[in-house]
């Protein structure tokens, strides 16, 4: 189940062409990955160790492919650095404590923009807009560690949004979040997509994927075993079983009741 329509060096897509990656000699963690990412919100799913994080690091030029190439809107990742690419691709890491080091929320959010924008006031304005978007406006002067864990995760999200990249990658955005924060993140994702951003996420929350991402790519053992419309991919029980994933609850429910998923969807 592979969506293989792409062309090289397209300004409007991210092209991953025959990419292989090994951390250690000959031990390939990613094998012959071919995929093109467009503006559909895309979820990357799979077991821990399947290669999702590695893949995303390659997109961000934190790693270089051992074989093959990745083009981010005609820019080959081998010819740039992660720092330079941060104008275009933003990656929100899973753990806020791997990133936060300033003592004020506003300083933390502005760290990235100051590296990316030429004018300080541009950085400031974008930071305020980002804080507004995640619902942290008004907390600029607070210490990041005085915020709750959910708020800190939103802070990290804001710090990347403030850099105004075209592509935003979210690594496990809903981990350790309560239902309410998950809803907020879903809203933010919708707004980003409306603004024309490419939103890509790694997640284990199948229901979150079903609700917010129109495209799903399934990784297993370093290969892509499924790639297409979310509703189709997450309906394939054998693929999910191979990838050690579970059916989203609503899909499971619709199958057990014996009605098509669309009917249940309306009622949510």
């Amino acid at each position, binding site marked *: 189940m592979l969506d293989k329509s792409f062309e090289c060096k397209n300004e409007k897509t991210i092209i991953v062409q025959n990419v292989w990656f090994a951390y250690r000699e000959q031990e390939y963690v990613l094998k012959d990955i071919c995929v093109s990412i467009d503006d559909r919100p895309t979820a990357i799913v799979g*077991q*821990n*160790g399947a290669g999702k994080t590695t893949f995303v690091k390659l997109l961000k030029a934190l790693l270089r492919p051992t074989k093959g190439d990745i083009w981010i809107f005609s820019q080959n990742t081998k010819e740039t650095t992660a720092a330079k690419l941060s104008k275009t691709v933003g990656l929100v890491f899973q753990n806020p404590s791997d990133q936060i080091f300033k003592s004020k929320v506003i300083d933390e959010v502005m760290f990235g923009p100051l590296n990316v924008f030429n004018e300080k006031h541009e950085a400031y304005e974008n930071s305020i807009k980002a804080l507004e978007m995640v619902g942290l406006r008004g907390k600029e002067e607070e210490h990041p560690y005085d915020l*709750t*864990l*959910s708020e800190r995760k939103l802070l990290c999200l804001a710090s990347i949004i403030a850099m105004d990249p075209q592509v935003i990658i979210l690594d496990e955005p809903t*981990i*350790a*979040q*309560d*239902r*309410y*924060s*998950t*809803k907020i993140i879903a809203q933010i994702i919708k707004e980003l997509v409306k603004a024309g951003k490419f939103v890509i996420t790694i997640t*284990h929350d*199948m*229901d979150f994927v079903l609700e917010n991402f129109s495209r799903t790519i399934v990784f297993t053992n370093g290969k892509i075993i499924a790639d297409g419309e979310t509703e189709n991919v997450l309906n394939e029980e054998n693929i999910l079983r191979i990838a*050690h*994933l*579970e059916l989203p*609850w*609503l899909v499971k*429910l619709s199958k*057990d*009741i*014996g*009605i098509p998923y669309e*009917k*249940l969807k309306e*009622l*949510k």
Partner: protein
Amino acid sequence: MDNVKIRIENLSYAYPLSKKNVLNSISFSISGGESVGIIGRNGAGKSTLCLAITGIIPSFFGGKRVGKVLLDGDDVLDIPKKELVKKVGLVLQNPFSQISGAKTTVFEEVAFGLENLGIERDEMVERIEMVLKRFNLWEKRDQNPFELSGGQLQRLAIASTIALEPEILILDEPTSQLDPQGTTEVFEALSELRKLGITIIVVEHKFEKLVEYVDKIVFLHEGNLLGYGTPEEIFSMKEIEEHNVGEPIFTTLCKNMNVKDATGKYPVRYKDALQLLKGAFWKSC
């Protein structure tokens, strides 16, 4: 005969240097062998409550604790540490920060707590073997704990705690950092624990799974106890929607379709919801 294992009486607590109470006059009790879930928004006081039941709050954190936390009738602060450790076990969110870090094999890691208590070697070896087999870690006994996956580490944390043979086990968001497989492994471990008759308290956001494993739920909001009852009772409360706490997905469907069970509450367990929804759908055809 009073089977109350844990009794919380008017428990209030504020962290040191903080004026705001994180817990406000909480009172409820849990019987021996029961499994109780704790739900609420982030910041509701769930973790604080867990730590208060173990005595870590206030002994580790300082601050002022008002009210009582009684385990088998004795306040947790009056129980000597040696007895307390054998009575209550604690499993936290982050799998990595629960291994001692001082041991290089899984086998020795489980021994850590037993060694600290001065248990005789022969008994130690027996308990470790039993507990590793029970939680499917026996094949990994010679591996370095840092090489295990998140799910395996959480199972190791549970195993290490169970080796001390506690009567009460508290788990604070044990699956929040795990993938679906790891989550399943931990919930399966919880079933094992129920069979052993251990009193379980678990904080969880994965409501769909939680309701399958608990008898009652404690509903906290901003430090207050808003409800304590069966999962059906709790998730039918209007405060659940008012405060945006969330609920099992199929419960939302039932609410939207106004499908209730015989007692007039919305179903929360998968099988119950499935049955009622099937009836509702096929009736309207």
